[in-house]
């Protein structure tokens, strides 16, 4: 009986992925690259054993491509929630015009990213396997203070860049890799703008790169531990299938 349930979960996931490809318009690409990615994917599609879902009372992000997508969804939830609070704060009107312009744009981008992962994962997986809305707390952030908001925004954007840079290698389906790439460069544009806003005319916009000119890339476990140490995500979750 349990076997049957598992099988059903997998086949739903399969159908969902095809739908997703249609949804995202990527089937139009029709390149050898994409086709190669799809056939590879058939070998590495996550099994029911590592699907995202509740284990031991906590939601586990899962493994394989669904795990990486769910992990990205968690991070986008955090960013979207943060900027929603920023633009809704009483003090926002007192921020500089440039800061308001930049933060308002970023708010929209991050909500768009969150909603993309939400609808994509819901099209790929049964609802029990989709990460629920997480809850957040911002004990150290003064949302009425431009400097406090910008400092937190810089951490979140840099974290997002390092997370996507390090997560890309764990994606098996090239269509998802491309989407992750489409998002990470926008996160990096954000990081650059926020860092420059904090310290204009400096090298801060890109001095994150090492001696080879490479930005940080971090594994999910490093990112999750860093985010946990900030105490921003209050909903407990696990990531036992991600490196």
């Amino acid at each position: 009986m349990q076997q049957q349930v598992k099988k059903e979960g997998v086949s739903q996931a399969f159908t969902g992925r095809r739908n997703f490809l249609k949804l995202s318009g990527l089937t139009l690409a029709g390149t050898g690259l994409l086709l190669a990615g799809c056939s590879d994917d058939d070998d590495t599609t996550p099994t029911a054993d590592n699907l995202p879902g509740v284990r031991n009372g906590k939601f586990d992000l899962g493994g394989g491509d669904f795990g990486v997508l769910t992990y990205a969804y968690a991070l986008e939830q955090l960013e979207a929630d943060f900027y929603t609070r920023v633009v809704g704060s009483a003090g926002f009107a007192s921020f500089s015009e440039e800061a308001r312009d930049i933060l308002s744009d970023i708010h929209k981008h991050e909500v768009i990213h969150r909603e993309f992962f939400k609808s994509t994962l819901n099209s790929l997986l049964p609802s029990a396997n989709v990460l629920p809305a997480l809850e957040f707390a911002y004990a150290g952030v003064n949302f009425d203070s431009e400097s406090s908001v910008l400092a937190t925004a810089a951490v979140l954007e840099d974290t997002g860049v390092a997370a996507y840079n390090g997560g890309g290698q764990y994606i098996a389906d090239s269509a998802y890799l491309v989407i992750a790439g489409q998002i990470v460069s926008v996160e990096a544009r954000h990081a650059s703008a926020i860092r420059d806003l904090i310290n204009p005319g400096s090298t801060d916009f890109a001095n994150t790169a090492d001696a080879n000119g490479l930005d940080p890339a971090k594994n999910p476990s490093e990112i999750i531990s860093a985010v946990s140490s900030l105490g921003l995500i209050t909903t407990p979750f696990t990531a036992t299938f991600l490196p």
Partner: protein
Amino acid sequence: MNLIKFLESFTDDKLYTSGTSRRDSFSQFGTIGKGLALASVPFGLSALANKSFAADIQPTPATAAGALQLALTLEYLESAFYANGVDSGIIPAEDQAAINLIANHEADHVSFLSSAMTAAGVALPPVPTFDWSGGLGLTPFEDYEQFLAVAQGFEDTGVRAYKGQAGFLMGTPYLTPALQIHSVEARHASLIRRLRGQKGWITGSDRGGLPAEFQIIYDGEQSTTLGAGQFDAAAQSEAYDEVISTQTAVDIANVFIA
């Protein structure tokens, strides 16, 4: 005869040897340039070379090696461009820290990719001969506004090109470094765009006042597919950068290759 091969054999080892750092090469050119009219010898051998050869680069194969070769050629372009810009003296004091950092990063990318490719036994593409006028009469090393405009075009192209090559690097040790370069290029793009009074991100397919010939860099960026249903088309297009094909990346680069 294969044009690239021919150019390789033509190339003066002393000037183009991979053992010489890019910075050293550019200082050499800078020294030559100072003794002559900069406009007539914009870049080293070009006065000699571009009369004889149409040296356009060709699309690289859809393989990991091809992706690295395209990446290195684009980094040659960016690195040479910023090195010339730094040497030109036109960069205002308040922007020098930023432009110097970008110049250093692009030189770092050339070194890093060259080393990685050599270690992997991947042939290094020859350094093209550049035509910074873009065939449009541009003078980016005399006019800072033009310098920033061309820089924006290069950075936004780099972001799209790396993204377009990522699939070819899947399953290789070069995917992650390529992504790490990709995000640095995006940081550069954002800064350069903001120095020009643009948003750090691309709205629709707006080329931001660049010459119409540069529209190819922004075509396709207006996609709203992944952001459908949220806010407005402007925000939906900004929230995602788009890929460009190998052919488009090559076409853009060839605008600045003699």
